[in-house]
């Protein structure tokens, strides 16, 4: 970093604490990160590279609308439609865009399917590459150095910490996302979900199950969490 890590003056919010600006009011204070973001935002706006309302809309989209729900819809359809499952396995990018979930981070997707013999798990050791249009924003732990390194070295114990215990004979494959290729795990369809609608099935698909740090919920688990009526 260039600008140094000093705090731009600490404190400053004490009431009755007067500064030498000639004002009698307590002044405002922005911390270093707020200042740096405002600086860049105002400059990029002036130069025409960002539009503040569009920026807010983008944040709103990633926070609220995308969520892991797009990915869940993809998985639910694959469970219910063998043709779509095949398409997803063969060309995930095309399959996902056929559902109109496209975007800058979802452009090069590879879907890896969990089976009784193989469990897949995704990590990005380099920089937290993540299929945002499909899974929303990454969880905090996905970005942590500990997860990034340990998922590769000791996936089984990482999974255990997430509460996932796999049968002894199940192999674990760890996929390293890059800027070019992003992975989506297709979790195994839970037992006892034969007659369920795609919409209800999607309620069983958690974000973690599509990263491979969790399994899809059973209908009972989903009901217990209030996700399914």
């Amino acid at each position, binding site marked *: 970093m260039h600008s140094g890590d000093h705090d731009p003056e600490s404190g400053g919010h004490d009431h009755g604490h007067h500064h030498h600006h000639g004002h009698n009011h307590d002044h405002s204070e922005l911390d270093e990160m707020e200042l740096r973001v405002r600086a*860049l935002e105002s400059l990029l706006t002036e130069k025409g*590279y960002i539009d503040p309302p569009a920026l807010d809309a*983008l944040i709103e989209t990633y926070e609220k609308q995308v969520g892991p729900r797009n990915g869940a819809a993809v998985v639910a359809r694959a469970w219910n439609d063998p043709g779509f499952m095949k398409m997803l396995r063969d060309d995930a990018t095309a399959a996902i865009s056929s559902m109109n979930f496209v975007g*800058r981070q979802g452009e090069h997707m590879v879907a890896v399917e969990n089976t009784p013999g193989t469990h897949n798990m995704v990590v990005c050791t380099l920089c937290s590459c993540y299929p945002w249009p499909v899974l929303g924003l990454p969880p905090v732990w996905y970005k942590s150095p500990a997860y990034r390194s340990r998922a590769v070295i000791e996936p089984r114990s990482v999974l255990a910490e997430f509460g996932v215990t796999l049968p002894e004979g199940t192999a674990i494959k760890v996929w390293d996302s890059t800027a070019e290729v992003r992975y989506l795990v297709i979790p195994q369809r839970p037992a006892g979900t034969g007659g369920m609608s795609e919409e209800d099935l999607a309620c069983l698909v958690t974000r973690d199950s599509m990263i491979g740090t969790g399994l899809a919920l059973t209908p009972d688990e989903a009901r217990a969490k209030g996700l399914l009526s």
Partner: protein
Amino acid sequence: MSASKPACDTLLQSPGLEVNEDGPVFAEPWEAKAFAMAVSCHERGLFDWPTWANALGATIKAEPDLPYYKQWLATLERLLADIGTVPETERLDRVNAWDRAAKATPHGEPIVLGRDREPHHHD
């Protein structure tokens, strides 16, 4: 928010993204802004995504202990300086301008750039 929606739709209102079991995805609003600015600059063609990912990877490697979105913002600042969109000096001048504006703004009022040059309203 209507009661008739499928229960899992309520997920969109709260957890998963904004807040999950590990805490909020964006701890502070500036983090969301930093995130969205990079995406927006990419959309405007200032850099391709592999370039961004490599630059972010380099920052993380160089400063592994920095919190993620500080690494993110530092990467964006450096990349924009490198390609000449926002030179370092221009950026730092603007940081200082916002700092002066904030300090000239009474607590609780919106902070506006140039506030420190008021109350003499002449350009």
